[in-house]
């Protein structure tokens, strides 16, 4: 058991260090320590299940140790900024005022192709229109457009639109969600009347219905099976 704990700690910190040195690109959507924990736990849990000769405890103890490491590292890094940047790294500025910072790109092992791919996935085709392109510590590239390229907000246009409220699901796959209906301040009578006005007498014929407190709805009927 002691060996299992020590080995888990060694592998955890070795992976943390390796992944940190490999750069942010490998991480996807997770923070570094989350990524390492997720990568290890998935494999650890499978071993005692596949091999009946391994005691279940040999799988459970490392999972608990990893859980403790993850909680402790997350907690400590929340309070100590230096430690946080040491473990998780710092966000990197890859684009500034339409100019690609090549040294930073190289430091993060980010190729121009990958940069273009990331930008396309965010609907940005012109690098000149970007004020800042920041590679976050979780490996995600965030793009802030130049003020002139940003979409105009309602306030900038002098408009004051009303908040229609948060849409809640009222019918999901033919099932009425009574709690959501009550929370919106509506009742069955309102629902039946609304359904009738949209040509759906029976809630079981509805695939999805959402409603806002203002009464605005979205309704999709189930498709007929061929």
């Amino acid at each position, binding site marked *: 058991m002691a*060996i299992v704990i020590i080995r888990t700690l060694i592998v955890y910190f070795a992976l943390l260090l390796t992944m940190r040195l490999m750069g942010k690109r490998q991480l996807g959507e997770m923070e570094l320590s989350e990524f390492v924990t997720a990568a290890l736990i998935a494999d650890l849990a499978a071993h005692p299940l596949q091999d009946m000769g391994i005691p279940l405890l040999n799988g459970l103890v490392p999972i608990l140790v990893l859980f403790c490491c993850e909680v402790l590292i997350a907690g400590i890094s929340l309070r100590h900024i230096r430690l946080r940047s040491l473990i998780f790294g710092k966000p990197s500025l890859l684009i500034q005022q339409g100019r690609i910072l090549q040294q930073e790109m190289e430091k993060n092992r980010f190729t121009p192709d990958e940069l273009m791919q990331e930008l396309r996935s965010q609907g940005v085709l012109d690098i000149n229109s970007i004020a800042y392109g920041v590679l976050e510590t979780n490996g995600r590239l965030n793009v802030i457009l130049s003020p002139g390229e940003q979409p105009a907000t309602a306030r900038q246009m002098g408009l004051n639109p009303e908040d229609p409220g948060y849409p809640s699901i009222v019918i999901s796959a033919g099932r009425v969600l009574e709690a959501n209906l009550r929370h919106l301040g509506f009742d069955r009578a309102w629902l039946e009347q609304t359904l009738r006005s949209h040509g759906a007498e029976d809630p079981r014929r509805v695939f999805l219905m959402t409603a806002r407190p203002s009464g605005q709805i979205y309704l999709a009927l189930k498709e007929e099976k061929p």
Partner: protein
Amino acid sequence: MKRELWALTLLVLLCAGAALNVCTADRLIGTVEQSLDRAEHAAARSDFDTALLALNTARDLWDGYRCYTHIFLRHPDLDAIGDAFYQAEAVLRQHDREAFPALLAQLRFHLDAIDRMEHPEPGSIF
């Protein structure tokens, strides 16, 4: 902060459990090996009844910890020790004084391997 304290407590408890496990393994294997020593000496004097009694005591001690061993130790290791006990007993029943020490050495090797495996030493960690 509360969550981190819980995690730290759990980690300390796991370490304490690991230390307790090392002590338990040491004590169990030490006691079993004492009985094996008695069996070896008796067999050397051709006192096979006493040797068989000592070997059975060792096996009873080992089997008495079945719950512990099955939770903490790898099952192939347990099977190897069980087989070694049965082979040593078979040889004793045939009053084979020559073969018994070799089988006993094999049994001790398996027990020592388990003991070493539980000790946090560089050799077992890496």
